[in-house]
Each structure stands twice: as structure tokens, then as C-alpha cells.
């Protein structure tokens, strides 16, 4: 027997549903169109979803007008900076906004700005310090900058910024003006990294504060290390602390350090259980080292001469790091955490 299908008259709710479905499909289609890879066609960076920051390239810098913008992410950064891309990515790179400025629509660009969103202030700072020539003069640009020919480089917030003059007509003053304007547009609560305030100033050696993103001191099991050098009558040593993802990462790092020392015949003592972890030992290249871990923080000392004193110092550093950073110290800056 044939089945008779009854066609009922569509109700208003059905029509609304159909419209909503079609609208949803259209929205998805438009989203795909906008969100899909755009190569490097000029885009308002505010509309490129790969650019997560609120900061938009200014439309005008002095007499120069914004001519073109590009956005790159980790997938295609190599197209822009080729062999350097992995290093930037390893440093926490999230996205790059490139903005070009020219004297007029028919003119070649004479200033180019590279605005790297490095996700965190520490990453921007670390990348900046790597590029900072020791002979250069640190100038008052952003949170710290320098000039090298027709290039201005600075960091502020979570941004690492390069401003370049292009061509023979580029003037250093135009570069400095552009750099200053960009720096003003980046918000930041502080010129310093809050993490450096954790270190005691007593005996702190000048120009020894640093942030080492990966494998500080050649130790593959450590990362995200804030380091300070100390010079006291008892000798020179280094203190450092690392803020990791969580307690498991800390346990893993402390155990790895014990393994490192043991493998080299220098392990003296290890406490790898409970909330307060510690290991100390000696190595020909990093000297006597003490590492302590608690929560998501590691703290340690290298080239120690007095283990008891080192324990006191590292414990103090751990307490200070927890107190300062566990209270929600801001990472600052647009795009920062």
C-alpha cells in the first residue's frame, strides 16, 4: 500500500526558522570569507581576526599617511622574516602588524612599522634585550629603546616594535617621530617588569637583571627565568626564579635538575616529595646550584659558596615571587595577559 504523504501548510514559526537558518548560513559564509587566509591584501587591522590587539595603526604620522597594512601570524611569519621566524615564535610571538606610511597615495612608503604582539610583557622585553647592542644608548622611547641608523626599536606592554625609514628620503627624525607616536598609543602600567622587583637590591650587581625564555644557563629543563647577579664580599653568585604553568611543571623541573646533577655525579641532596621541593649539587659549568620549587614557582641560586645562606636567599626569593606575582601582578599592556 502506498504511503500517502501529507503536505501541511508552513506555519509562521517555520518560516522564521528557515530565515534564521539561511541567515546563519550566510553568517558562517561571511565569517569564513573574512576569517580565512587573506594572504597579505591590505586590511584594516581591526578587522583581521589574527590581530588580537586593540591597537590600530594611526592613519597619519606627521605628513605621512597610512598606505598599507599587513598582518602575519605564526603560520606565515616566515614569509616576512624568513629564518628569524622560529626564534620569534619561540619567544611567544602571536601576531605582527606591519604598517607603511607614505607622503601621498602615489608615493612610495618611507616609514614602515613592525608591531609584534608577543603576548606578554616579559616576552617583548626579552626579545628587545636580545637585540639591544651593548654599545648602544638606551633612550627614552617606550619602556626602553634604541636608535640604529634609520631604525628605532623599543618595547612597551607586550609589544616589540621596530620603526624603519625606507629609502634615501627617509629621515631619522621621521622615524623617531613615528616611534614616539606609536609608543604613546601603547598603554602600559609600568616601565619596568614587575618580576624584577622581586629581587633583593642588597648586593645586586649593575646591569645583571635579565629574562631568559628558554634553557637558561644551558639547562634544558628550565625556562621563563628571571635572573639577577649579585656581588658580595662572600663572592659572586646568581639568583633566579621561574614562573611555570603549574605545580606539575615545577615538580618536573626539579626532578629534571636532580637528574641532571646525578647524571654528572654532582647531586648532593634532593627532596622530591611534598609541597616544598629542593635539590642541590655541584657541576663544573654551573657551579654549586640550589633549586627549590613550590606551587608554580621555581627559585634557585648558582655558584653558591654557602649552602645555608643560599637556602635562606632562595627561600626568601620564592616567598617574594609568590607574594608579588600570586597577587595578580598585571602583565600590562594591550594584548598582555
Amino acid at each position, binding site marked *: 500500500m502506498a504511503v500517502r504523504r501529507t503536505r501541511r501548510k508552513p506555519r509562521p514559526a517555520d518560516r522564521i526558522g528557515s530565515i534564521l537558518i539561511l541567515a546563519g548560513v550566510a553568517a558562517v559564509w561571511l565569517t569564513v570569507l573574512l576569517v580565512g587566509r587573506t594572504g597579505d591584501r591590505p586590511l584594516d587591522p581591526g578587522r583581521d581576526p589574527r590581530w588580537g590587539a586593540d591597537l590600530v595603526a594611526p592613519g597619519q604620522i606627521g605628513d605621512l599617511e597610512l598606505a598599507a597594512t599587513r598582518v602575519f601570524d605564526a603560520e606565515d611569519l616566515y614569509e616576512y622574516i624568513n629564518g628569524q621566524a622560529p626564534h620569534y615564535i619561540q619567544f611567544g610571538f602571536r601576531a605582527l602588524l606591519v604598517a*607603511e606610511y607614505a607622503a601621498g597615495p602615489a608615493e612610495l612608503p618611507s616609514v614602515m612599522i613592525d608591531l609584534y604582539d608577543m603576548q606578554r610583557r616579559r616576552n617583548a622585553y626579552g626579545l628587545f634585550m636580545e637585540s639591544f647592542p*651593548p654599545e648602544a644608548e638606551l633612550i627614552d622611547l617606550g619602556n626602553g629603546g634604541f636608535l640604529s641608523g634609520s631604525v628605532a626599536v623599543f618595547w612597551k606592554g607586550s609589544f616589540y616594535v621596530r620603526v624603519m625609514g625606507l629609502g634615501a628620503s627617509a629621515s631619522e627624525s621621521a622615524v623617531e617621530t613615528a616611534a614616539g607616536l606609536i609608543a604613546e598609543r601603547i598603554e602600559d602600567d609600568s616601565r619596568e617588569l614587575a618580576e624584577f622587583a622581586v629581587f633583593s637590591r642588597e648586593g645586586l650587581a649593575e646591569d645583571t637583571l635579565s629574562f631568559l625564555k628558554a634553557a637558561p644557563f644551558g639547562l634544558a629543563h628550565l625556562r621563563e627565568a628571571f635572573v639577577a647577579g649579585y656581588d658580595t664580599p662572600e663572592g659572586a653568585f646568581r639568583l633566579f626564579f621561574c614562573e611555570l604553568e603549574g605545580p606539575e611543571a615545577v615538580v618536573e623541573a626539579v626532578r629534571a635538575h636532580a637528574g641532571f646533577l646525578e647524571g654528572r655525579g654532582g647531586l648532593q641532596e634532593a627532596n622530591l616529595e611534598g609541597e616544598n621541593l629542593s635539590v642541590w649539587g655541584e657541576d663544573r*659549568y654551573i657551579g654549586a646550584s640550589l633549586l627549590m620549587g613550590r606551587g608554580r614557582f621555581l627559585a634557585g641560586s648558582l655558584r653558591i659558596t654557602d649552602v645555608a645562606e643560599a637556602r635562606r636567599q632562595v627561600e626568601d626569593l620564592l616567598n617574594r615571587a609568590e607574594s608579588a606575582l600570586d597577587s595578580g601582578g598585571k602583565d600590562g599592556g594591550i594584548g598582555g595577559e
Partner: protein
Amino acid sequence: MTDGGNLTRRNFLRMGTTAAALGMAAPGLLAQGSAGKLEYRVLGRTGLKVTTVSLGCMVAPEEVIAMAGDLGINWFDTAHGYKGGRNESEVGRALKARRKDVHISTKLRRGSTQEMLAQLETSLTRLQTDYVDNLMVHALSSRDQVMDEATLAALTRAKESGKTRFIGLSTHSNMTECVNAAVDAKVYDIVLTSFNFNSDAPLIAAVEKAAKAGLGIIAMKTQLGEFPNPEGGLTPHQAALGWVLEKPYITCAVPGTRDFTQLEHNLEVMSRRLTAADRRELELYAAATRSLYCTACRGCEGQCPQGVNIPEVRRCAMYLEGYRDTGLARENYAQVAANAAPCGDCAECVATCVRGARLQPVLARAHSRLA
């Protein structure tokens, strides 16, 4: 593992992260500070015997450099510009006590003869030595740069004054042209070039030819990044290094070495050989990464129906974006435009990269900025 039928780098990396982590967690061979067997080769006509696994110091902490020296590595590669100049100081401190046992090679930025000689003086001070074993001009990318008179004058004067024993050049762009030019110049002793399992036939031929001509050949960028080796054997990092050192025309490699573990693993390569599994993984990774970088193979030459000189325009884009040398980019683009059609406004670019890299965006960027 594949994406649309193609093995992508991202999928390949995701595939074996755990395997890689396990491999790297295995204890190294150097528990007691022993390097195992060291291999040496003679660096071309210099006569220097250097360890086949040497040290690229750019990312190496001072502690690692010191350990490398203690373990017997005797060739250390740094540069005036690494870490803003701090790397040479690190090398100097780490190797001061054993200066006579090691060879230090550094590189200077191109400039006038006087500028380069001034750089050299600064470098020697940082390195705490009154000579280097090899002085190179850094990151050349064209025959013209290799033959540049100011460069050759600086290197030659440095050699004549005893501030360097030998001279050379480094290149990681348009390497084939640069290596061939180094042979033709007849003054260089050493060439440091990118060379890895992804290198193409023209570069391999150029390097072989240079070695036969007596130049010492040093390989860098041997790893092309890190990737997993699920089948065991050498780690992929080691396999890539081992692939390079299998080539008798390569004297040594200077892998960038960030930590003690990496140093130990690199040294282990000197006493290990590639297995069939290692080669298979390298082939897979080569296929996954071939399209990422332009290697200046010139496979795109002659493809544009409008006559755009694609390889040369790509090189201009590299000067502008990679090297940020806008003057050089514009100067070269002017020559390209004078001799051939500039990139136009075709509705669709028909040229394709034989390695799968994207051409059109790079060409369009170069044209918009340099035309």
C-alpha cells in the same frame, strides 16, 4: 597526519611530540664528561683539523661553550652582531683558558673597508684575543657581494696584518650563487653555508665544486627546526646533523646549541650513523617543509608570461623584508625593472614555485614597495 592528502608540518609535529620528549629525556652519553670518539676533518687548504661536530655559538650560553671546549670541540662560530655583540664576549670568556687549543671564527657586517676593520677591532677585544682563526663577511646573498672590493680589501688586510689566519664568507640566501662566486674569487679560504637534508641539487653541486677547489666547507642551519622521530634510532635533530656529516665534502657543521643536552646529543652523532628509519623520517619532514622557505633554486625562472624576473624580484623582497636593507632592495629592484618587466596587475598569477611556496603575495609586496 595528512591534510588534504599532503603531510603538513603542523600535523607532522603533532604526531610525535611524545616520542620526541621521550627521546630527549634519555640520559646522554656524557655522564662523566666524556665526549666519546671525536671525528676530525681537514678544513680545505687551511690544513686545520677540526671536529666534524663543532659549535654554533649564537644561542649557546657561556656554560655550554665552556663545556664544548672541554669535551674537545675545537671550532667555534660566532659573529660581531650576535646578541647585540654579547655573544663574542661570552665566547671570549668561555674559551680564554684554552685559546691555543681552539679555533675561533667570527663574522663582520658588510660595509666600507674601514668600517669592517673597526668592527674587527671591537670583536677582538670582546673575544679577548689578538687574532681569530677565521674572519668572514656575514650573510652574503649575491655574487656582487662576494666580489665586493671593499669587503675583499678588509678581509685581505686583516689577514695580512695577522689579525686573522684565514678568511671566508657566510651565506644563507642564494647560496648556490654565493658558493660559486667564492670559488671564482680565488681569495676565500672558507665558506659557511646553509646546508641540510632539504638542500637542492645545484647547491650540493656548488658545495662539492668548492670543496674540490680547496675551500673549507662548513655547514649551518643543518636541522631546519625540530621534529619527531617515532621510529627511534637517532633523534631527528641528530639525524639531520648526521645527514650533513655523511657528505665528505663538508668539513664540519656548526649546529646552534642552546643547552647541555643538545650539546651531548650533537656530539653523539660523531659516532653514530643514519639508519634506514632515520632517512625515512628525514624524507617525510623534507616533504612537509619544502614549501616553507625560498631556497633561491630559480625554479620559478621564466614562468611569467609578462616577463617578470621572478627569482630576482623575490631576492629584492628578501632584502627589504628579511634583511631590512631598503637601499639594497630598491637598488636591485631598479635593475630588475630596467632589464625586465616589473610585476604587473594580472588578474591571476600563473607562476608557481616548484617547492610549493607562495609566490604571488611576495611579488606583489615587492612591487608595491619598490616599483
